[in-house]
């Protein structure tokens, strides 16, 4: 996936055990050691990097080694991820569907886990955002899905 910050374009793709970034024609290998609350501990080409990143619409605040910079995302995927695409639940990132817990016509409660997927060695639960009925299930166990692909459609 290609993204441009200020004037620099970076392509980032998941690889076997992490990510490959392509920047200025060079490939850089990244592993995520830990990531929470806006703090990431990374191995970038085997160099340990601690990065703090916050987002506000197109703005990105990045602090590495005490130096803070503000970047503006000028192109790439849409800002943020739509939780709800005309009643549809979408994949937050590329990955594989591990389990589908509901079928078409099921009544579900807000917060109920409808589907789990795996991406970047993490388990992601796709939960109902409201009480309602499952209109259709568009993914099956084992499917490889793309970022923003619709997984489940719901109706009130």
């Amino acid at each position, binding site marked *: 996936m290609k993204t441009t910050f200020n004037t620099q374009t970076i392509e980032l793709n998941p690889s076997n055990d992490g990510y490959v970034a392509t920047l200025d024609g060079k490939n850089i290998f990244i592993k995520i050691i830990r990531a929470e609350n806006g703090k990431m501990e990374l191995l*970038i080409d085997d160099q340990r990097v601690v990065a703090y990143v916050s987002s506000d619409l197109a703005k990105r605040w990045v602090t590495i080694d005490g130096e803070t910079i503000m970047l503006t995302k000028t192109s790439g995927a849409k800002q943020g991820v739509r939780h709800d695409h005309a009643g549809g639940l979408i994949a*937050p990132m590329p990955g594989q569907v591990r389990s589908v817990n509901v079928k078409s016509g099921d009544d579900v409660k807000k917060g109920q886990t409808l589907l789990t997927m795996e991406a970047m060695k993490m388990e992601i639960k796709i*939960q109902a955002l409201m009480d309602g009925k499952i209109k259709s299930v568009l993914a099956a166990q084992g499917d490889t899905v793309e970022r923003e692909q619709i997984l489940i459609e719901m109706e009130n």
Partner: protein
Amino acid sequence: MFNKILIANRGEIAIRIMRACKELGIKTVAVYSDADANSQHVQFADEAFHLGDSAPKESYLNIDKLISAAMQTKSDAIHPGYGFLSENASFASAVDSAHLTFIGPSADSIRAMGDKAQSKILMKKAGVPTVPGFEGLESEKDFSKAAKEIGYPVLVKASAGGGGKGMRVVNEESELSEAIQAAKREALNSFGDERLLIEKYIANGHHIEIQVFGDKHGNLIHLFERECSVQRRHQKIIEESPSILLTPELRNKMGEAAVKAAKAVNYFNAGTIEFIFDPQHSTFYFLEMNTRLQVEHPVTELVTGIDLAQWQIRIAAGEKFPFTQTDFMQRGHAIECRIYAEDPSNGFLPSTGKLLQFIEPHAPGIRVDAGFAKGDEVTHFYDPLLAKLIVYAENRQSAIQKMQHALKDFIVHGVVTNIDYMQAVLAHEDFANGKISTRWVDTIMESNGLSFDMHKQSSALQIISAALADFVFVNQSQSVNQNETDPFSPWKKINNFRN
């Protein structure tokens, strides 16, 4: 001792004072404006009282509302903090008239030191060295004559002034008339009083101030100096104690002069005598007295071990100050950096917004007095001070190193801060050598010796991290509060690592 204290202030200083109250077993009342309804000082207090509109004159500067708040909450004392009404003699009088205790000096002391020209005359009488100059002049002819006698360069400044407003440096006679007009205009706008005084301009002057402290029983001592010469737009950003410019003899002399100055106005409670120090001649002159607790008081607390905020309260309640001058010594070295939401690359203009990230450093010898936390909004209504970062170490060199690391670990996103700027100042050889005068920041900025740009060329690591974060923290792309408003968002669960 008091049962309940109302803190007529906001931000970090309100929290600092509330801490002292709590440690002394005293209940606390916070006051707040519309903009501060959810702020940290409100959450920290035992109770909170809404004053009104966000504009300071409808809230933190409104004497009637504050007195009424204290009565309604059955508070028995008011602590003014710094800024706002802390040096307003009418406020101190109003507090007294309402049969409440003002935690600070008497209204008379505040009044006597509040007027620059008046206080200078008082100090001359008391035998405190003052900058050669004249007060009470009116015609331009008189100013011109005075300037010649003093010798250029001279400084014209507002009698009622402070904070660098209504102040002009005049290098030669041809500039004098225009400078007087400009200073008068500014003085009238800022203080409603166009009277000016004229004095010798001390080039490369350092700002060195002495903390004094006294009780209502006539005991008064000093607590050594703070070097506060790193200033931008006449406001301090880095303070330290001790100053590397002072010898033990000079320190004693300045301490004695400060005590003399404070005694001349029958001072009690915490106060600060500001001196301008001429490093060329090792001479010092009285500048003004701040009749309140200073922003930079933690520096003194760390090197002397005294809790100034607690003692302010105890003194106000009538306790005797049990220490004498010889009980105190400066031990080690303390430095304070004021973390401001401001943009050094844009004339230090305040920066507003929501704090997307706010992580304070933690390590031995580090103190953080903060008024904000992650998720808080920094508004344009008030001073953009986010926090004070203070370090303590055995000597100056170690303290500087400690500060450099502490600044690295202070993460603020959402508003531009001066953190990178202070790193550059600390790393500069002029800072290491104690050669920073009060004009240093402005001079260096003008000559572009230090340039700062938040939009500077980005490194590969920064770009990679930003791109990666879009994958990893998908949930944060709208706002930091999304988790709270939508507890069932699937994106919230994204960090559940399996290994």
